[in-house]
């Protein structure tokens, strides 16, 4: 099976799953439908146009280690894809802002990654598909020290492994 054919069949499966649950109208993850011209409906984490490549970050409030309502759909979309692709492995990478000690932040980043993993487990993703790691405050995406920079760095990313 070609890569595209595989991706399309997975997209169709995801659409079926999405139809079974209620979805907000402005829910980006669920509303794109299948086979849109720009490819965003394709569930292929290695296709840069796919929603899995475009929306791979879950952001957290200050001092928070639970996935907020706003990002549940993103996690669900990734979860449904992973259920449909049981051979696919993913690393959830937790991050924190720069405040506090290196090791404690490493542990806090892990809490964020674990919060995402637990949601994936509830959706039915196998434990063997998911590894959670943390970069703590060591690999910040935003390098400044404004509140906006800190918010950008309180994050867990889906990093798919080929």
């Amino acid at each position, binding site marked *: 099976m070609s890569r595209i054919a595989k991706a399309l069949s997975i997209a169709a499966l995801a659409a079926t799953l999405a139809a079974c649950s209620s979805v907000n109208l402005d829910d980006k993850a669920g509303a794109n439908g299948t086979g849109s011209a720009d490819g965003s409906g394709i569930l292929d984490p290695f296709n840069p146009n796919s929603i899995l490549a475009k929306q791979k970050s879950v952001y957290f409030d200050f001092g928070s280690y639970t996935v907020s309502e706003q990002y549940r759909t993103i996690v669900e979309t990734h979860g449904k894809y992973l259920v449909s692709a049981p051979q696919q492995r993913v*690393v959830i990478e937790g991050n924190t802002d720069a*405040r*506090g*000690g*290196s*090791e*404690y932040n*490493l*542990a*806090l980043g*892990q*809490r964020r990654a*674990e919060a995402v993993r637990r949601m994936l487990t509830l959706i039915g993703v196998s434990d063997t598909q998911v*590894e*959670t*790691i*943390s*970069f*703590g405050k*060591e*690999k910040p995406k935003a390098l400044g020290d404004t509140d906006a920079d800190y918010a950008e760095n309180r994050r867990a990313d889906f990093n798919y492994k080929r």
Partner: protein
Amino acid sequence: MKFDRPSNISRTRQSYGFIAKQWLVLLIAMLTMFGLNAPSVAQLRVDISGTGAQQYPVAIADFSGEPAGKQIAEVIRADLTRSGQFRMINTTGSALTVDTPIAYDEWRGKGADFIAYGTVLRGSDGRYEVKYRLGDTVKKGQLDGVAFTGTEKELRRIAHQIADRIYEKITGIKGVFATRIAYVLKQGPTYELQIADADGQNPQVALRSREPIISPAWSPDGSRLAYVSFESGKPVVYVHQLATSKRLPVANYKGNNSAPAWSPDGNTLAVVLTRDGLSQIYVVNATDGSGLRRITRSPLIDTEPTFSPDGRSIYFTSDRSGSPQVYQVGLDGGEPRRVTFNGGYNISPRISPDGKTLLTVTRRDGTFRVASLNLATGSENLLTEGRDDQSPSFAPNGMQVLYAAVQGGRSVLAGVSSDGRVRQTLSVLNGEIREPTWGPFSQ
């Protein structure tokens, strides 16, 4: 008075000749170990503020034998001054050699309770002989007299050794001027694990990486460093043999591997793993990572283990109470005991060599500062006043604390006396210093 104890000199000369040979071996080993042997471009500048509760007035005369004699005296003066426990008496124009009879009353009249003096001689083989004496102007007698030999490169180290002897003879406490420190220097996208003398001089690169390096920890004998490297894409704990540059991952499980801490006998490493969920503390064999055993079991975070000096318990950071606090648990298990109660954020525990004082990083009014907690009385002393002071560690004699501070938006190396009275910063002109940790006494 002249050479009142010649036998002492010759005896110590012999023993120090042996040690100098060991240094030479170490030096060669170090040249090998650093591979490229690239000297670091980082230069340090030292700033000191405050004075100790008690200051011994000492005169350190320039040693005879230019220019090395003057340089050695300067290193000794800088070492003793940095401790905050000594006040330097002016010795200008003293022109003493190691054989000069000392006019004790004259030096006492100038305010010096102690006088150190010596001679440097360069032999025909290019090696140096450094002879020094320490006199007590109150008791009017010699406290110490030793000779060292070494190469030109070893002269700084000899000066640190002399400063250690002066420090110990006068205070009764072992000196730490000849010890080493480790830290991570970040320059642009490059991370370097560096080892330097305790005064920040002579930095050498042990590991260079494009990925973060954190949490370096010295083995008790100073021969190995454990640390966390992200080079494989995630945190993995390595043990690095400094003399051979050989390194081995000792904890590389699913998830994170971090926060290595050595047991006092050097046989065991405590590490933090997330293989079973959130961060928990385990122990492994330090040589090969075998014998994995879980120490803590909590539903939340347990991290930053550090062994008590007797090796029977571990202090660590846990947020089991809702905020990060320091706990103590026996290695045989049992219920952990909470140790810190002041404020809502106490992390990075470090215990003093005598086991009586606990250092933490504590958050107060939005700033992170190094706090010192007397474990018997519960009284707390905030040692630092910075905005983001991190990674404290005790000198092996417990008299000084090394930490990372932020100044002018950059991380620098900073030191403070254990009573908080004397502070110093060692500014790097190029790059950020992180995760400093003070090494053990040299062996």
